[in-house]
């Protein structure tokens, strides 16, 4: 506990500590003073961490979990059992090395919605979790009996596996994942090393380098091509590896209240998808994924803060049948439905056209000035066409479907994403129309849920109104709670 805390604090302050090194003058003149400050800070950090370790205590009271912590400002946190929504156990790499696990307790509604106990022995964490779940059960009795009438299938038996990802499937997931992210990382590394190297070289040969550069332009071209190829390949490998590390040994267990999701090689994650709390289910595929019959599924749960991509619970390697199973368990109904569909109008391309032009200029202009006008023209047109294609696909794949029980929202460009929101989980719904859209009778529809909002651009105004009316009508009719 103490060591993890220390490591984390040091990591957080690391960049601040490095700052003075940037300036050379400071580096030479004030090195001693700086080192002194650094060591005293470290010492202070050490004492602080130790003290905070001593002060960090938790215990179980009659109807609440209590947590004491703080060094200068001591605080006592009390979490009533009925407020606890989720308990998850996780383990990152530092925690693995130290042989401890972290326990995360999610509560509903409150502003600071989660409590983390950073280091516990695995046995202790499991005990505590079991204890809390046990207590919670006794509290929820009336609720529980109600649910038992609907779900009484797997009682007393081992929890059933909905999905268990083997290595070959994991490989498929790795291959089919979007490797642009990996490429982004490489670009970052490359540009920063390039900056560093050119800085270094500039000190020695100031003028020579420029001459050298002009003479070797033909070479540079083939070098560029090689680099592009290299970047693509490494990006692919890095992405594949990181995805495979992350989702190693993924398994989904069917529990009474939802699903338990476990995965991870370096950082073990143990998450719980609660049926009541689930608001949006998203499924993402791309052509390669379709070929392998796998897809990514993201589950968004109710949260008081913004739900970003990271907070969604992601499940990879899900095939059609498994998706149906997950969907059915979480929303208690089938997926195959007839939707009343409103599609994004093709005029949305006019708006995205400016982005297309911007991207083209961004790639084209530097090449035009620094390398070659012809190359600039070629690359510029390639970028123009590529971005245009992506924009076109974005429009084609964007729609909203309405049905008495569900809203289905399509999005994506190269990949395809469908999000499902049960109408009774919608919080509020708006339609937006800019002055430019007014003349063509188009509008944007915004659907707000407890797990973030979804926006569908440029759909016909009358259809948006119809969807709004119908969803609203269902909201009044339903007796289902959103959570």
């Amino acid at each position, binding site marked *: 506990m103490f060591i993890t805390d220390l490591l984390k604090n040091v990591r957080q302050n690391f960049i601040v500590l490095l700052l003075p090194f940037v300036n050379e003058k400071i580096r030479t003149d004030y090195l001693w003073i700086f080192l002194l400050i650094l060591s005293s800070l470290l010492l202070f950090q050490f004492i602080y961490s130790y003290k905070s370790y001593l002060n960090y205590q938790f215990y179980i009271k009659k109807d609440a979990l209590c947590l004491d912590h703080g060094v200068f400002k001591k605080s006592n946190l009390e979490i009533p059992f009925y407020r606890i929504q989720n308990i998850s156990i996780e383990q990152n790499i530092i925690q693995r090395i130290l042989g401890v696990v972290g326990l995360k307790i999610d509560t509903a509604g409150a502003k600071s919605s989660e409590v983390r106990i950073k280091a516990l022995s695995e046995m202790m964490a499991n005990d505590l979790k079991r204890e809390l779940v046990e207590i919670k059960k006794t509290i929820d009795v009336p609720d529980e009996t109600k649910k038992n009438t609907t779900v009484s299938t797997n009682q007393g038996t081992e929890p059933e596996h909905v999905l268990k990802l083997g290595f070959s499937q994991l490989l498929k997931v790795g291959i089919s994942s979007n490797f642009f992210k990996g490429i982004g990382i490489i670009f970052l590394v490359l540009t920063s090393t390039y900056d560093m190297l050119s800085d270094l070289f500039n000190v020695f040969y100031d003028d020579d380098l420029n001459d050298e550069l002009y003479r070797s332009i033909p070479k540079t071209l083939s070098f560029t091509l090689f680099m592009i190829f290299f970047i693509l390949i490494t990006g692919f490998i890095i992405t594949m590896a990181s995805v495979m590390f992350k989702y190693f040994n993924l398994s989904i267990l069917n529990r009474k209240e939802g699903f338990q999701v476990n995965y991870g090689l370096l950082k073990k994650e143990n998450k719980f998808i609660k049926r009541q709390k689930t608001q949006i289910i998203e499924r993402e595929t791309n052509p390669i994924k379709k070929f392998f019959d796998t897809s990514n599924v993201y589950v968004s749960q*109710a949260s008081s803060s913004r739900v970003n991509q990271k907070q969604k619970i992601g499940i990879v390697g899900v095939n059609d049948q498994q998706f149906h199973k997950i969907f059915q368990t979480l929303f208690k109904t089938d997926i195959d439905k007839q939707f009343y569909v409103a599609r994004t109008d093709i005029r949305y391309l006019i708006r995205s056209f400016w982005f297309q032009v911007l991207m083209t200029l961004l790639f084209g202009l530097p090449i035009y000035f620094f390398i070659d006008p012809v190359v600039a023209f070629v690359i510029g047109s390639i970028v123009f066409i590529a971005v245009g294609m992506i924009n076109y696909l974005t429009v084609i794949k964007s729609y909203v479907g309405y049905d008495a029980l569900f809203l289905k929202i399509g999005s994506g460009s190269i990949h395809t994403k469908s999000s499902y929101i049960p109408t009774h989980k919608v*919080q509020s719904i708006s339609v*937006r129309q800019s002055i430019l859209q007014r003349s063509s009778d188009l509008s944007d529809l915004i659907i707000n849920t407890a797990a*973030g909002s979804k926006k569908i651009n440029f759909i016909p105004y009358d259809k948006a109104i119809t969807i*709004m009316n119908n969803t*609203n009508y269902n*909201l009044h009719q339903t007796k289902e709670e959103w959570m």
Partner: protein
Amino acid sequence: MSDFSNLSVKLENIPDFKSIELTPIHPKFRRILSIRYSIALILSALVLSTLIYYVSLPLWSYSLMIFVTLTIFVLIYLEFFEGFPNRKFGIRELDIIYQIGFLVKKETIVPFNRIQHIEVTQSLLLRKFNLYSLLIYTAGESSGDLKIAGLDHHTAQKIKSKVLQEIEDE
């Protein structure tokens, strides 16, 4: 999900929120908007003139700055004063409707049974004119929340008690 027998409801029978008459907010709120507008205008003019006086930049950059600022103020003018008649709200049996905006007109429906809590507030400027703002919170991030500014005391309290009553009835 046997509660849903509403699949058979004809589309015409579903109430259309566009068909009800909306109530405009209090006309005095227009004066508040003009005060806010003038303050912003004076402040920007001050900032720009100090900049021009003390910092020497090429002439074109000044013209650009002034042009951009003026454009922004024209847009805000349209949004505030052309859009003022658009600021309307409506209460139905089961939900509350609010519309706002000129350049981008937005219409929102919040059903009573999704409201988490409701707040009546009054900023300094609003207090001068004895007006109130009504804040309606739904679950989740703030994008689904509703703020109706410029209601008189009576209306704000009436809506609040109506909503509270609906929440309690559930």
